[in-house]
């Protein structure tokens, strides 16, 4: 098929490079430099989809970011992406796209029955209809709505594209490369300011690409090309096309999405698909231009009805005629510019101007070209279903209330211009309270809130001469403040045609007896009648009207619909538009890919992965790893076909019988140094620390000020003023911040320094009855006897030439030691322990065995210290000093914390000694009680006791102290289990703690 609507030698596309593409399965051709929209229009394709609610046929309404209709599902390089605007998607060889919102096809769409049913879906239809009965929602309503509605389908595959984030700082950030942006950028760049110029389209120049003006004796476009070329050579300037600044956040932070690869058939190697820029700008120049707004009339959503500026852009940029028999319907001079372009290229347009007798240079030019102009005329309704075939037109009275006799004229497109709406989104997001400008019937930015200035059409200034003057000046002034340079720039002379005042007219009245749909919001199918209903039903706030009717809530964020909606509300309410006010503009200005927002932080990269120095040994020895916070830890070391249960049981048993070694590098470690170190510990921990001798370790519990246990661990006095504190793996960072808080803010008089040493030390826990024999062989020159190194003792030793720290501490409840060496020697230490331990039947053990060992000993860990328990709950009240004060002590007097039946840790054994109890199960008195069954406590941790060979759990149980011996039920609705249990002591194994001291 040939491109029958393409005209020769017009436009900026590359005629030497023909591209093939598919739309709804059919192959077409376009050129490099086309958008999908321009290429389809060149082929005469106007039907692109179906509307969201009524499934009415949809064509192209705009030519860029404002497009409400032309949304497609894109297929590129084996991936698919929904919600792509055909007007923004650049054509590439092999592009494939499909319509959305239609089933089974765009030409025959079942959902369109919504349109022919007499009862349209009026405002609030979804709220009113689908609310009742409740049970229908999931079964009937939701599947129906999901099938019928939607703007495409998200891919369910893993996204293989890469997205990058970039942080940038600049003096001046400029949003938009139209005349105002270019002038501001150029002036600032000449003053040596660091400038970022962002343009969302592929081509720079904005309105200069399509307007008939001269700047400095060149065409507007040539001038723009020259400026951009010069800016690109300047080292202090970053010039970015395909880059949309979509959000203006606090403290002059703006976010920009750069489409790096979307215009290519596939992403180049080592390139991202998109790059998200976080830009902190000293000053921001908003030159985002303006968007033409429609005039509302009957069936104004028919394919072939489009903005007059879009028709002009398709013609001037892409060399594409959107029709051969155009009607231009306008209330201002912009429509004439489009008509003139048509006429220049051999097409005869008809202009309908709602104004009675306008006069201007532009109008004179149109008259001189012999264009048929009908004044005081309007389009009453478009006719044609899938494409405009004709227009019902009529004269209109001066008060715009009375229509004359309706005539029908043949046409194939209706280009509409209802004047211009400044794009104030970024200014508004910045916090700028916008103001209504009567002369242009639109809002413009008011007082700047952050360091932002809005210029040109975005500020409601439509004269090129004034735009250039103010923008050159602003660029100079803003940059002068920063760089203190003052390079004067001569402002070029401008030739532009003067235009006349637009008509304050936005909606064609309904002729008598006609019931045309007159749409305000094209993407969400919101018609004039919907807003009328909402107001009749009592909605007043514009924010409520918006939500009830969904006016302006679609992905185009009401770029073409907001102002006409406001005009309607103000008219019905008999208020002026500024009194109605506009809804809040929120980022993003245009849809942004989730991938771009997430960036590289996906999958494994969503958090850092930390590995101990012994990691490769674990890998080589069949460790099965588990995420422990950001760390990877061996869960168990698999032998043969062992599963987790079998493997961890073997490892735990070996600790109880012989000796095991566990990698405990991940424990948090903090060096506490200074003459007041003991005093700090004494205030931070609940127990007493002032008398701990050098070479001794102590177990401590620290609380938050509200009395809840924050963390536990051992701290060792290495020398007079030097302590080595350990924390749990999870709380390491919080504990350091906690200590810093008190040292810096609460007790600055304490002379103590704290620093994290977690990464400096590799740790191995050696546990089991044979651990001392092993230790003696590892440190033949040290006296590690029970007298030489008693329980909670500490010494330094020589591990085959490597300096080591030896702590006699135990988490497993067995005779145990912890050996630390500098991280770089971690693997050496580990291999030595394994090698020397062979004769004692040593086995490495993972976190699962570690848990088993601590659970059956009744040692608490994160599952009990869960941010809800106090020392008493964990049977740790013996560690709470009555004599001294410490952080959180006063809270322990709260009545709930001293209640007689306060919750407390207990042991739980299933009566059948067989059934493992799922963690999280509730403990209840009566398993048959009606729901919600009163909960007495919950299972915090479960294991298979290797000592007794039956399941054992820990629980936090109400009145736990007095519950030992009671029979209860453990209920887990999630696992559908009810298990009769007996409550026992939490110290299931070695209750007197003799082993650790042996």
């Amino acid at each position, binding site marked *: 098929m040939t491109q029958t609507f393409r005209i020769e030698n017009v436009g900026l596309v590359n005629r030497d490079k023909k591209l093939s593409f598919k739309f709804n399965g059919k192959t077409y051709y376009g050129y490099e430099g086309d958008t999908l929209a321009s290429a389809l229009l060149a082929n005469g394709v106007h039907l692109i989809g179906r509307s969201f609610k009524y499934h009415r046929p949809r064509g192209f309404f705009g030519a860029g970011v404002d497009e409400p209709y032309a949304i497609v599902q894109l297929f590129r390089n084996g991936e698919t992406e929904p919600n792509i605007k055909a007007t923004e998607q650049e054509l590439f060889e092999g592009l494939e796209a499909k319509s959305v919102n239609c089933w089974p096809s765009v030409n025959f769409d079942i959902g369109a029955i919504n349109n022919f049913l007499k009862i349209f879906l009026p405002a609030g239809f979804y709220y009113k209809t689908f609310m009742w009965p409740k049970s229908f929602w999931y079964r009937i309503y939701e599947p129906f709505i999901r099938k019928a509605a939607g703007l495409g389908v998200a891919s369910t595959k893993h996204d293989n594209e890469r997205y990058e984030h970039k*942080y940038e700082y600049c003096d001046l950030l400029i949003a938009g490369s139209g005349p105002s942006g270019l002038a501001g950028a150029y002036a600032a760049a000449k003053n040596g300011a660091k400038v970022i110029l962002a343009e969302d389209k592929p081509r720079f120049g904005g309105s200069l690409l399509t307007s008939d003006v001269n700047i400095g004796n060149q065409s507007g476009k040539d001038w723009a090309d020259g400026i951009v070329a010069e800016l690109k050579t300047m080292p202090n300037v970053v010039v970015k096309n395909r880059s949309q600044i979509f959000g203006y*956040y*606090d*403290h*002059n*932070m703006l976010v920009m999405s750069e489409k790096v690869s979307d215009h290519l058939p596939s992403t180049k190697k080592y390139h991202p698909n998109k790059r998200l820029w*976080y830009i*902190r700008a000293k000053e921001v120049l908003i030159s985002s231009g303006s968007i033409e707004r429609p005039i509302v009339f009957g069936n104004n959503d028919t394919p072939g009805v489009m903005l007059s500026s879009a028709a002009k852009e398709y013609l001037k940029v892409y060399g594409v005629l959107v029709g051969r028999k155009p009607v231009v319907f306008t209330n201002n001079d912009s429509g004439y510019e489009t008509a003139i372009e048509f006429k220049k290229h051999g097409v005869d347009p008809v202009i309908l101007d709602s104004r009675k007798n306008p006069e201007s240079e532009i109008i004179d030019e149109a008259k001189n070209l012999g264009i048929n102009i009908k004044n005081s005329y309007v389009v009453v309704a478009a006719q044609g279903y899938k494409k405009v075939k004709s227009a019902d037109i009529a004269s209109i009275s001066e008060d715009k209330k009375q229509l004359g006799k309706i005539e029908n004229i043949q046409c194939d497109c209706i280009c509409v211009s209802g004047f211009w709406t400044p794009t104030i989104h970024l200014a508004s997001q910045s*916090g700028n309270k916008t103001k209504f400008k009567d002369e242009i019937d639109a809002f413009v930015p008011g007082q700047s809130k952050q360091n932002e200035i809005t210029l040109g059409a975005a500020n409601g200034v439509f004269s090129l001469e004034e735009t250039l003057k103010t923008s050159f000046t602003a660029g100079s002034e803003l940059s002068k403040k920063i760089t203190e340079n003052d390079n004067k720039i001569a402002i070029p002379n401008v030739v532009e045609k003067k235009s006349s005042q637009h008509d304050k007219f936005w909606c064609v009245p309904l002729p008598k007896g006609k019931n045309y749909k007159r749409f305000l919001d094209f993407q969400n199918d919101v018609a004039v009648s919907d807003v009328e209903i909402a107001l009749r039903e009592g909605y007043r706030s514009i924010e409520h009207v918006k939500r009830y009717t969904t006016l302006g809530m679609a992905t185009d964020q009401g770029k073409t619909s907001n102002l006409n909606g406001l005009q309607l509300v103000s008219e019905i309410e008999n208020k002026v538009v500024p009194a109605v006010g506009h809804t809040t503009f929120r980022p993003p200005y245009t849809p942004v890919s989730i991938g771009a927002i997430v960036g590289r932080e996906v999958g494994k990269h969503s958090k850092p992965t930390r590995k101990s120095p012994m990691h490769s040994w674990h890998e080589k020895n069949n460790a099965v790893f588990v995420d422990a916070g950001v760390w990877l830890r061996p869960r168990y070391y698999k032998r043969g076909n062992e599963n987790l249960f079998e493997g961890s049981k073997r490892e735990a048993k070996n600790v109880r019988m012989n000796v095991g070694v566990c990698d405990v590098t991940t424990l948090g470690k903090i060096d506490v140094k200074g003459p007041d170190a003991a005093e700090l510990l004494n*205030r931070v921990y609940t127990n007493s620390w002032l008398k701990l001798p050098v070479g001794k370790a102590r177990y401590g519990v620290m609380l938050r*000020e*509200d009395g809840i246990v924050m963390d536990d661990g051992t701290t060792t006095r290495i020398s007079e003023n030097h302590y080595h504190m350990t924390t749990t793996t999870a709380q390491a960072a919080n504990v350091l*911040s906690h200590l*810093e*808080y008190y040292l*810096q*803010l*609460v007790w*600055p008089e304490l002379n103590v320094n704290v620093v994290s040493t977690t990464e400096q030390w590799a740790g191995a826990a050696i546990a089991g009855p044979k651990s001392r024999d092993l230790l003696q062989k590892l440190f033949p020159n040290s006296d590690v006897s029970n007298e030489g190194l008693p329980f909670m003792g500490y010494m330094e030793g020589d591990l085959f030439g490597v300096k080591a720290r030896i702590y006699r501490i135990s988490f497993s409840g067995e005779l145990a030691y912890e050996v630390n060496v500098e991280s770089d020697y971690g693997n050496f230490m580990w291999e030595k322990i394994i090698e020397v331990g062979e004769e004692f039947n040593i086995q490495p053990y993972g976190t699962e065995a570690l848990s088993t060992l601590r659970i059956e000993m009744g040692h608490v860990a994160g599952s009990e210290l869960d941010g809800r328990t106090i020392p008493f709950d964990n049977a740790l009240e013996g560690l709470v000093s009555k004599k*001294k*004060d410490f952080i959180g002590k*006063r*809270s322990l007097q709260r009545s709930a914390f001293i209640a007689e039946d306060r919750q407390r840790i207990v042991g739980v054994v299933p009566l059948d000694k067989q059934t493992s109890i799922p963690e999280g199960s509730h403990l209840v008195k009566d398993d048959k009680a009606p729901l919600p069954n009163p909960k007495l406590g919950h299972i915090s941790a479960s294991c298979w006791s290797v000592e007794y060979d039956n399941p054992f759990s820990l629980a936090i149980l109400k009145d736990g102290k007095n519950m030992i011996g009671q029979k209860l039920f453990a209920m887990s609705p999630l696992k559908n289990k009810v298990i009769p249990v007996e409550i026992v002591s939490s110290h299931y194994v070695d209750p007197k703690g003799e082993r650790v001291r042996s």
Partner: protein
Amino acid sequence: MLYINCPHCGMRSQNEFSYGGDASVKRPELNKEVSDQEWDDFVYNRKSLRGKHLELWQHISGCRQWIKVERDTATHEIFRTFKADEEVA
């Protein structure tokens, strides 16, 4: 994202900091009798005010110093920042 002037390091983005709450709260002295009301006020009760607010931030991915920031909770405007031991006039 806020832009915070760390008195030790200079202007840094918010993602280098962690928030620490109301800076006007004073911890009761150790070993001092404290009524339930005083203790509750210290641990739980906060004004959550709209407007100018003196608050704590820690430059956690920077110098690790706790600092005081005078910020408007409604507009996010930051007026002044102080070192931990600096008197706020």
